């Protein structure tokens, strides 16, 4: 027997950590067909049964506000898992249990995993899990996903509940009169409108109809009679409770929870969050908050680009050029390999792939910092600080989170826009996020900086960062008043407690991202380097070229190069590099290093022959702002949903990049002679 179980819980409750604990090395990431949002699936380890665990996006309730909430809800309703593991942040138990009260309506067996019990115990709170089971009607287990305690007990409990044929009915959350109203209403629906959502769990269907849930209303297609019947019940509830329907239902849920936990928890002593509060007072201080934020950003760039870059780039380049290439050449020559094979391997593959790998240490450091920002809870604080500013530009403070994530890679950045509830803000943020430079573009800046701006490397890269912010803000301001017009959604954001980032978590995240980068170097960039080498070494009549200028690639590059003449880099090498950069931004450097490898002198000398400082700056600006790589473009299409917005976004990004580079080169080349 195969089982599917779902892992559901609030955002920030530790779901992904638990998912990794439960699935171990079996983890793989998959996209579901037809669904825009990513769910993770893996098989449960340490069990004899065949159990697939599905990690759903974090949600606060089963009401459909944002896309990730809709995805979680649709999975639970349509795929009907055999069991739900409801993960609850026990240090925030009251709010976390609100989702439980809704999951209970789905009539699906459930197991509660009380996470972060190590934190809870430190604050002097005890939770009686047997009492919890009595109150809420499903079994609980104490775990710490971080410290990996209680995991075996959780798996045992899951197995036990899965084979249990009859799971007991959940307790009534609402008072008797309300429950009667719900059941009577459901009978009425079944009798009069048997075609209305027959597959849905009864109580869930009744309550969502009464709540006039947007998704459910869409499915009943304005059935006027049913709407009238709904109004009748709503009136009854209002008279009964003296409240409107929404507050009555939410209020009863919370009352049920508060009563329940007052029975099941015991406070032995009262520890506050004093240190937290003090730290927060500094981080979010009226005057210091913004300087602190920019200081962090500056440190991130300084450490990853200048410090680590200086230490590693030279060493890796020496290894590739003086050890590897020389070694391969001698080795292959000794084996009697043909000259063109040695050239292909050295000038094509090692040069192309190596140029990208040079930057791995710097990217690792960048990813470490981003992961720390994500794990520590600082992101939400920055959103809080920035909301007021972002609002002026048609965005919300929450738009900032995708943008910070986008510093690593635009793909997860664009995907992170799903947490924004408002469609207009979500689309706008998805269009603006690629303007924030991703990690793959960084090597290009570093390269150009090291050739043309030796003494101001960090400053140059930091200036790009500021320009991208400027572009984001001005574009947000303009687009929110033109293409993406509309009302704002309001802003509600949980501020999680500050947490010390866990080394293991950071290491895993950095490893996943770096692996992706290296895999790309080993596949796309490897293949493209080989193809490029051929295109560059043969003429249209498939003769070996005498000079690269005669190659197929050069001819092609020369056709498009004139477009870039006003921007200062109208040479065929840069033009071809920009084209291959569409596949992956890492390709830009590989392409240039492959194309220039035949020329005399080393790579940096060759670069300094085809660029001037001003045209190099104009080039990096173009790379920074022009449409992202294929993967990000595809993600953007998916998140925008329609061709109209998508084509507009692409044209906007390319057009803006062209305009800004144009201005920089035209103005710059007149100032600096």
């Amino acid at each position, binding site marked *: 027997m195969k089982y599917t179980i779902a892992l559901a819980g609030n955002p920030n409750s530790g779901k992904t950590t638990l998912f990794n604990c439960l699935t171990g090395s079996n983890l793989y990431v998959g996209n579901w067909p037809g669904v825009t949002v990513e769910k993770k699936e893996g098989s449960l380890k340490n069990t004899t049964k065949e159990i697939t665990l599905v990690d759903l996006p974090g949600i606060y309730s089963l009401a459909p506000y944002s896309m990730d909430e809709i995805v979680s809800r649709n999975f639970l309703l349509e795929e009907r898992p055999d069991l739900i593991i409801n993960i609850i942040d026990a*240090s*925030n138990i009251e709010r976390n249990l609100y989702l439980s009260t809704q999951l209970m309506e789905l009539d699906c067996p459930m197991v509660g995993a009380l996470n972060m019990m190590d934190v809870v115990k430190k604050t002097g709170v005890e939770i009686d899990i047997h009492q919890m089971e009595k109150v809420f009607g499903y079994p609980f287990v104490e775990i710490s996903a971080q410290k990996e305690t209680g995991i075996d007990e959780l798996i045992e409990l899951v197995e036990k509940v899965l084979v249990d044929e009859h799971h007991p009915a959940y307790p009534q959350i609402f008072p008797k009169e309300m429950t009667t109203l719900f059941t009577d209403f459901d009978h009425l629906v079944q009798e009069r409108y048997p075609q209305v959502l027959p597959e849905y769990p009864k109580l869930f269907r009744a309550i969502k109809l009464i709540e006039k849930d947007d998704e459910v209303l869409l499915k009943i297609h304005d059935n006027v009679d049913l709407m009238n019947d709904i109004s009748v019940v709503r009136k009854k509830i209002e008279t009964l409770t003296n409240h409107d329907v929404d507050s009555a239902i939410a209020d009863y849920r919370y009352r049920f929870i508060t009563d329940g936990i007052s029975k099941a928890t015991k406070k032995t002593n009262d520890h506050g969050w004093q240190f937290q509060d003090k730290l927060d007072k500094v981080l979010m201080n009226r005057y210091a908050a913004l300087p602190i934020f920019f200081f962090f950003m500056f440190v991130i760039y300084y450490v990853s680009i200048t410090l680590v870059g200086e230490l590693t780039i030279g060493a890796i380049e020496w290894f590739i050029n003086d050890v590897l290439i020389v070694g391969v050449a001698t080795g292959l020559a000794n084996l009697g390999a043909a000259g063109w094979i040695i050239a292909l391997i050295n000038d094509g593959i090692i040069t192309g792939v190596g140029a990208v790998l040079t930057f791995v240490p710097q990217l690792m450091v960048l990813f470490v910092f981003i992961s720390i920002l994500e794990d520590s809870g600082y992101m939400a604080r920055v959103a*809080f600080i920035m909301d007021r500013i972002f609002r002026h530009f048609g965005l919300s403070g929450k738009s900032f989170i995708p943008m910070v994530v986008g510093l690593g890679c635009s793909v997860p950045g664009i995907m992170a826009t799903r947490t924004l509830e408002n469609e207009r803000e979500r689309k706008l943020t998805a269009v603006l996020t690629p303007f924030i430079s991703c990690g793959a573009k960084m090597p290009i800046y570093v390269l150009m900086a090291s050739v043309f701006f030796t003494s101001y490397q960090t400053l140059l890269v930091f200036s790009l960062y500021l320009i991208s912010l400027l572009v984001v803000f001005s574009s947000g301001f303009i687009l929110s008043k033109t293409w993406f017009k509309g009302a704002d959604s309001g802003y*509600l*954001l*949980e*501020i999680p407690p500050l947490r010390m980032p866990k080394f293991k978590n950071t290491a895993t995240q950095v490893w996943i991202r770096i692996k992706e980068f290296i895999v790309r170097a080993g596949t796309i960039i490897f293949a493209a380097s080989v193809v490029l080498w051929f295109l560059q070494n043969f003429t249209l009549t498939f003769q070996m070229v005498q000079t690269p200028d005669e190659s197929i690639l050069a001819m092609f590059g020369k056709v498009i190069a004139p477009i870039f003449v006003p921007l200062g880099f109208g040479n065929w090498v840069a033009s071809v590099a920009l084209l291959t950069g569409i596949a992956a931004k890492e390709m830009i450097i590989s392409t240039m290093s492959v194309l220039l490898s035949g020329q005399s002198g080393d790579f940096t000398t060759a670069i300094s022959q085809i660029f001037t400082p001003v045209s190099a700056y104009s080039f990096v600006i173009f790379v920074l702002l022009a449409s992202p790589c294929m993967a990000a473009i595809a993600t953007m299409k998916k998140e925008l949903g329609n061709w109209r917005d998508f084509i507009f976004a692409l044209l906007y990004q390319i057009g803006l990049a062209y305009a800004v580079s144009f201005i920089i080169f035209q103005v710059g080349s007149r100032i600096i002679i």
Partner: protein
Amino acid sequence: MCTLKDLKPGQKAYVGSIAVEGLMRRKLMDMGVTPGVEVQVNKTAPFGDPIEVRLRGYSLSLRKKDAENILMVQ
């Protein structure tokens, strides 16, 4: 009768009613802002908006524009 917006950092009060309709109303309720719950204002953001409040054992931030619609009782 005052609104959540009028509370100073450190002050506590109970939610009376929520005078806003639609999505924001339901979202507030889902996040635990229901009649009768005790709310304490923690702080105001550096640029004066949004504010951060503590309720039901966690911290929530919301804009003054929305806090203005939450009526409080002492």
